[in-house]
């Protein structure tokens, strides 16, 4: 994987690669949204790494998602009530689900409750970005590998940090060599365990990214049939199937947000309490 900026620079490349290129273009990040160009900055070099802080569509989506969440939660919880109603009730039951069904069973009573805000933020952030991607004209930030990788790296850092904090550095290193394994297998097991530390967040990032991209690709492909076949007669079927896939995507949006949160909790819990 290259960390270089390989993003295409504009929106005038449709003809290249036919329908495939067109779909790819729409799945990718861009510098323009709703017809206006977003601010472009020259790459900044920090510690020898060139970083492009240009505002892209996906950055904008991150912000829109954050804004939606902040406004929704602010409206819901600015006046504390004994028993929340309406949207506040829905949000509260989701947060309680995250606390009681995801955080506490996987991480334990005390640490689970402490990490609930982190897991709830991950869940709502991913969910909102997934759902934004289903709205026409908006794009899916979670369909960008950089975004999912960034979130997975946060989980990875939390996992290692709580592994070391709960078990001490010695205990943390000791659990890289699983108990009950004959000593001669250790040269194999230890590298596998270390590799496992990195494959977990990698799978986390890939799963979310691929799920989001796949759904959108199918929708684009179904609608693209109309253009490829050059007839409107296929439109009813294309649209019906696209709507069905869209509904499936709605489900997947929730499912993937749940899975990401669930696995984050599981990894942190496994690292914090390796004996389980």
């Amino acid at each position, binding site marked *: 994987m290259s960390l270089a900026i390989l993003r295409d620079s504009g929106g005038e490349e449709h003809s290249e690669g036919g329908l495939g290129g067109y779909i790819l273009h729409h799945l990718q990040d861009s510098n323009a949204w709703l017809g206006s160009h977003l601010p472009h900055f020259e790459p900044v070099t920090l510690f020898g790494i060139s970083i492009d802080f240009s505002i892209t569509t996906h950055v904008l989506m991150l912000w829109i998602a954050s804004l939606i969440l902040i406004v929704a939660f602010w409206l819901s919880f600015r006046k504390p009530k004994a028993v929340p109603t309406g949207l506040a009730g829905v949000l509260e039951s989701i947060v309680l689900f995250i*606390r009681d069904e995801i955080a506490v069973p996987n991480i334990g009573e005390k640490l689970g409750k402490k990490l609930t*805000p982190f897991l709830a933020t991950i869940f709502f952030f991913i969910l909102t970005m997934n759902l934004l991607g289903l709205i026409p004209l908006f794009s899916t930030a979670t369909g960008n590998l950089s975004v999912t990788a960034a979130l997975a790296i946060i989980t990875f850092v939390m996992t290692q940090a709580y592994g070391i904090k709960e078990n001490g550095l010695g205990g943390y290193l000791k659990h890289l060599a699983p108990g009950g394994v004959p000593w001669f297998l250790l040269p194999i097991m230890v590298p596998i365990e270390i590799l496992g530390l990195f494959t977990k967040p990698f799978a986390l990032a890939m799963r979310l990214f691929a799920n989001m991209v796949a759904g959108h690709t199918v929708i684009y492909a179904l609608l693209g049939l109309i253009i490829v076949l050059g007839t409107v007669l296929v439109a009813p079927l294309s649209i019906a199937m696209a709507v069905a896939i869209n509904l499936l995507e709605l489900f997947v949006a929730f499912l993937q947000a749940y899975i990401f949160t669930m696995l984050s909790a599981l990894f942190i819990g496994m690292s914090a309490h390796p004996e389980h």
Partner: protein
Amino acid sequence: MDLLSLNNGMIVWSWATFIVLMFVLYRIAWKPLLGAVETREHTISASLKRAEEAQAEAEKLLAEQQKKLADAQEEMQKLVKEGKSVAEKMKNDIIEQARVEAQKIKERAKADIEKERETVIASLKQEVADIVVEATSQLIGVAVDKTRHQKIIDDSIAGFGRKN
């Protein structure tokens, strides 16, 4: 493929956004929400505990009352039984006393009758002796000395008595 390449600017933006979002949401949502939920859970568990305690208290009181009631009933029955036995005893005493009294009266009457009879017999004997002495003296013409012949007379009278 472009789709699979990483853009470090995007990663940094994601981190920045996520961290800012988490802190803002912590202030406006997680802290008040989870705090309210904890408070509510505490209130509920405290209420449940109180209700349980109240129920236990009520059950204890009920048991006490029932025990008291049973005690009172037992006491009452004991009293009734005691009263009955006292009355029975009194009745028996009275009957016994009456019987003894009657017996006494009867015996006294018997004794009186006996005494009377003896008196009558004695006076009759005397009378008979006097008559015999009188009659005999007239018949034989000699005064029978009462004192001298007393023994013979008495013997003969005693002989009468035995024949009768």
